[in-house]
């Protein structure tokens, strides 16, 4: 846990400095009339102090490295996460341009074929039924306006 704790505590320490600075800019007010920056400032101080504490704890700790190394070495499947995330970002970018039906269909195909390696019949069948199911549930039943995009066929 030592190395990962050092990394994460440095991150939070930096983050707390930024928040403290921004909170100060918002105006701390005084104890009689606390301003909008008061609570975030206090919370960022707490976060900063605790990050320091965690950092000190990590530096003084020896051994027990094994457990965590195991957690980090299970990274056999990290490509899957990267692929999924990339697909999601692309989905976010294209959803309003290409429309819900088109994007969703492609997303499910990608997830099943590239992230998992399913056979094409399974992929197409699942993508088709999942898209249709969501469309019926959200658009038709719950009356949520999903982006129609280029396939502007539905009302």
């Amino acid at each position, binding site marked *: 846990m030592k190395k990962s704790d050092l990394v994460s505590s440095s991150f939070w320490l930096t983050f707390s400095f930024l928040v403290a600075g921004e909170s100060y800019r918002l105006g701390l007010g005084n104890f009689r009339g606390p301003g909008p920056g008061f609570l975030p400032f206090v919370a960022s101080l707490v976060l900063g102090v605790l990050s320091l504490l*965690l950092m000190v704890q990590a530096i003084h700790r020896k051994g027990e490295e094994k457990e965590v190394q195991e957690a980090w070495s299970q990274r056999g499947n990290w490509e899957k996460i990267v692929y999924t995330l990339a697909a999601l970002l692309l989905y976010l970018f294209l959803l309003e341009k290409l429309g819900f039906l088109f994007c969703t269909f492609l*997303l499910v195909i990608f997830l099943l074929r590239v992230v998992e390696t399913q056979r094409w019949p399974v992929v197409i069948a*699942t993508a088709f039924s999942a898209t249709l199911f969501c469309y019926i549930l959200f658009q038709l039943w719950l009356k949520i306006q999903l982006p129609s995009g280029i396939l502007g066929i539905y009302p």
Partner: protein
Amino acid sequence: MEVLSGVLYGFSVALQPLNLLYCFFGVLIGTLVGVLPGFGPAAAIALLLPSTFHVSPVAATIMLAGIYYGAMYGGSTTSILVNIPGEAASVVTCLDGYKMARQGRAGPALGIAAFASFIAGTFSIVALTFLSPVLANLALRFGPPEYFSLIVLGLTILAYLAGGSMVKALMMAALGIILSSIGMDIISGSYRFTYGFLVLSDGLGLIPVVMGFFGLAEVFSNLEEKLGREILEQKIKGLLPTCQDWKDAWGAITRGSLLGFFLGILPGGGAIIASFTSYAVEKKLSKHPEKFGSGVIEGVAGPEAANNAAAGGAFIPLLTLGIPANPVMAILLGGLMINGLQPGPLLIKQAPDVFWGVIASMYLGNAMLLILNLPLIGIWVKVLRVPYHILFPLIILFCLVSSYSLNNNMGDVTIMVFFGVAGYLIKKFGYEGAPLILALVLGPMLEEALRQSLIISHGSFAVFFESPISAGLLVLALSLLILPWITHRRPALPSEA
């Protein structure tokens, strides 16, 4: 008498066909969510919240509550048959439940889990029925300083009981409070940390954050780990426990119910902690502690009773104080507020149909769950066979569409994906999501209580120690913070809601 007429009124609400239907939907979905590993009640309730916008607040709350306590039933099925907890509160059920199943006693294990859940669930609802009006009355006397101290205590208890490092849990609580201050400041009217993003002007939405943390982040973790599961191929027979089983389990169920209920009420407590504590207590009290872990029925009955009792108990702080005890209750609170209701001591007067209707529906829901989980167990075993590669695109899809449907814009979807990635990384580095979520909800209440208190007292912090209730709560919180440093130990529990 007031309670009795309240309960009767509640049943008249809960028995209306539509509400009854929503109660059934709730417990059905709850059982499903409980059975499916890698998908818990918090994510499920967040995902389904948008779909309740067009029904009455009573029906919506009845359904969402049903998902929560229904998941407690379903979770045990997966633990016993597959040795993977369907949700976190059933982790300990694996220890003895799966061993029982390996010995060919899957039937009695599932049976006692369902009966223990029913008994404890019903007990906690009865206690909820009688205790909450009293507490609501008491809470009417709470002013801003008392609320402030109570919220501080709640966050401290959560950090104290959280799995892993307490420092990290407190850090997540602090981060949650920082995140909760995003958006317009109610008192001064100025915008904080929005940086021109329109979607942040109303504050960071709880629902997309929860979907990210407990939905998408879970998918990422599962994709990485590859869930291997082996379903026990055996005929499940003899679901009704024998007289000997009952004799062995009875004490555990009683203790589990009481323990679970009181741990459930605690702000920051909840079903997960209750189930672990019950297992530890049973092991300690047992005449044969060495047999725990080899398939003893007490090891299933106690924790299963405890997690159900806790699920009932957790409604008390929400309904009477307006303070959620755990992330699931936090989402329910969000749901009530979207429907224009303010949970708290006034709820019982302002919306008696919600207050009593939900309580009464829980009696009915528990009875439905017993039927769903005993005679129909075969269906759930089939559900367990749905492969994860079919399940995860659906979970992702639901997270995307549900978060879009909140406000019909891409902002919430972006927040959901962001917190999905952040949640995955945070867990990877050994932090927990629950304190962050709870602090995110409690943050605005904490800030309002703090600033009002200071305005009342003209800037003197003594106001928090002048009332005995507030002082008592703060002293308790402080001692929980200091205690682990002195004794170098605190109950270590595995993580996640």
